């Protein structure tokens, strides 16, 4: 269920569409493409509904489900059938196969493809009409590390050519090195919309980890100075609400020798989990 969701994906950048499973990412993308009808409201692309465009695939390229291919059909014929709807032929099919590195597999049936190869085929399908807008649902899902690196560079290159690239994922780690902008949803509602850097700055908690010869004494001194302190199992202190310089000064003033002093940053994965925690629909119970 998606309610009152409104966001902008700008040309020239990769916009990551992030949310836990069941948050409404796929539903939103399907509505965008006219496959699922919203109960109210309209969806326009460049001011016109998708169905009114003469050759919608020249405006919007989509990857909905990489597995959605006929297993008996070859990659080449899969692409050819879609190219022909726009009056394009074998030439364009060979081009997009080359772009995604599937030229060697053109004659193979998609039923023999790995999920990663199907993702590449899906991206090739989206690119057939050379559209300015790309809507990709979980394009990195199922790719091996080499494939993920390829896809990241590829998506960023497509954006750099001036295209609008919107891609979804339920994994923060997939966003970190790929997206410029971030749209975070949970239970069909917008949680955050900003650039990735801003998102990190606004939502990550800065903390300091410190190890000292006299941890209890230091903990007291830091608490007196107004910092939040928690003692880790290995006697290291996790200090919040301050920075490394202040911690060092306080330790020096008390004459406590430090063994280690470092800045730690909450990982994006942690931030994402914390933000979506209240709105996660399906959650495992602790055993």
């Amino acid at each position, binding site marked *: 269920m998606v309610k009152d969701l409104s966001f902008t994906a700008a040309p020239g950048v990769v916009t990551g569409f992030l949310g836990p499973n069941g948050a409404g990412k796929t539903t939103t993308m399907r509505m965008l493409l006219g496959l699922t009808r919203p109960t109210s409201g309209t969806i326009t692309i460049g001011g016109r509904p998708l169905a009114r465009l003469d050759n919608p695939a020249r405006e919007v390229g989509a990857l909905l489900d990489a597995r*959605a291919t006929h297993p008996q059909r070859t990659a080449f014929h899969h692409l050819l059938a879609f190219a022909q709807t726009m009056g394009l032929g074998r030439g364009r099919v060979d081009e997009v196969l080359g772009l995604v590195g599937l030229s060697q597999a053109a004659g193979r049936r998609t039923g023999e493809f790995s999920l990663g190869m199907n993702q590449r085929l899906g991206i090739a399908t989206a690119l057939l009409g050379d559209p300015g807008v790309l809507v990709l649902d979980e394009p990195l899902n199922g790719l091996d590390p080499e494939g993920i690196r390829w896809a990241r560079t590829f998506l960023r290159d497509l954006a750099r050519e001036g295209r609008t690239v919107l891609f979804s994922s339920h994994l923060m780690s997939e966003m970190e090195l790929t997206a410029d902008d971030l749209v975070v949803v949970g239970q069909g509602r917008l949680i955050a919309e900003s650039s990735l850097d801003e998102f990190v700055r606004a939502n990550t908690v800065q903390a300091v980890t410190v190890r000292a010869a006299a941890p209890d004494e230091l903990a007291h001194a830091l608490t007196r100075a107004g910092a939040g302190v928690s003692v880790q199992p290995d006697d290291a202190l996790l200090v919040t609400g301050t920075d490394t310089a202040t911690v060092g000064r306080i330790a020096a003033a008390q004459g406590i020798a430090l063994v280690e002093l470092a800045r730690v940053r909450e990982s994006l994965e942690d931030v994402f989990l914390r933000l979506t925690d209240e709105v996660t629909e399906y959650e495992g119970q602790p055993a």
Partner: protein
Amino acid sequence: MNLLRSEWTKLRSVRSTWIAALSAVAAGVALSVLGVSDLLGTSPAELPQGWDPTAESLKGFLFAQLVIGMLGALSVTAEHGTGMIGTSLVFVPSRSRLLAAKGVVVTGVTLLVSLVTTVLSFTAVQVMLGSAGLPAAGLGDPGVVRALAAGTLYLTLIGLAGVAIGSLVRSATQSLAVLVGALLLVPALGPGLPGALGDWFARFWPITAGQASYAVVPVDGTLAPGAGILILAVAAAGVTAAGHVVFRLRDI
């Protein structure tokens, strides 16, 4: 034109299309040949009343029609089953145009398959009958060409109805169930119903009515050929309209 080319690529690039086309022809001819083989020892005088060598040679339709119907249904259900329909609609958002293109291409292919099945079945059986000294039909005999044309049309209409059924139920197994029911069970069991209901099924059930169109010698209690094929055509158009409406209204 672009859409027709696209749908033709889809249809020809999967093995199941060619398997269905070949098995429709092979099964149709084989069943027709089997149907008359037990008559080969009999003398012309022993043949039943109203002997119709043309209709007799098309008995293999019983099975061929099922395969042709499935050929039509699969062209739609394969896209729903794999989820490819979503991608198809991104390229062609007009569902009416997409379904129409599919219908035209499938109808073209089934027309050809139907024609080959009809002509081969007729020829094989007439050759067998002739060599056994039994009365056979020839293309020059009155009503024979008309019956063969009607038989071809009959199978083609079932292929088109198959597309519509596929669009209605969106699953290959359910399409097969509907086709077995409509093509085999109802014509076999319907006329056994009591009173007027049984009579109606024996005459007006679109499949039974359509089968009357390729008889040369009229059978008692059935419709005239023209009326028979008309009823089947109207029924096929009705199912197609229903399949179209449902495809337009449902979310994918």
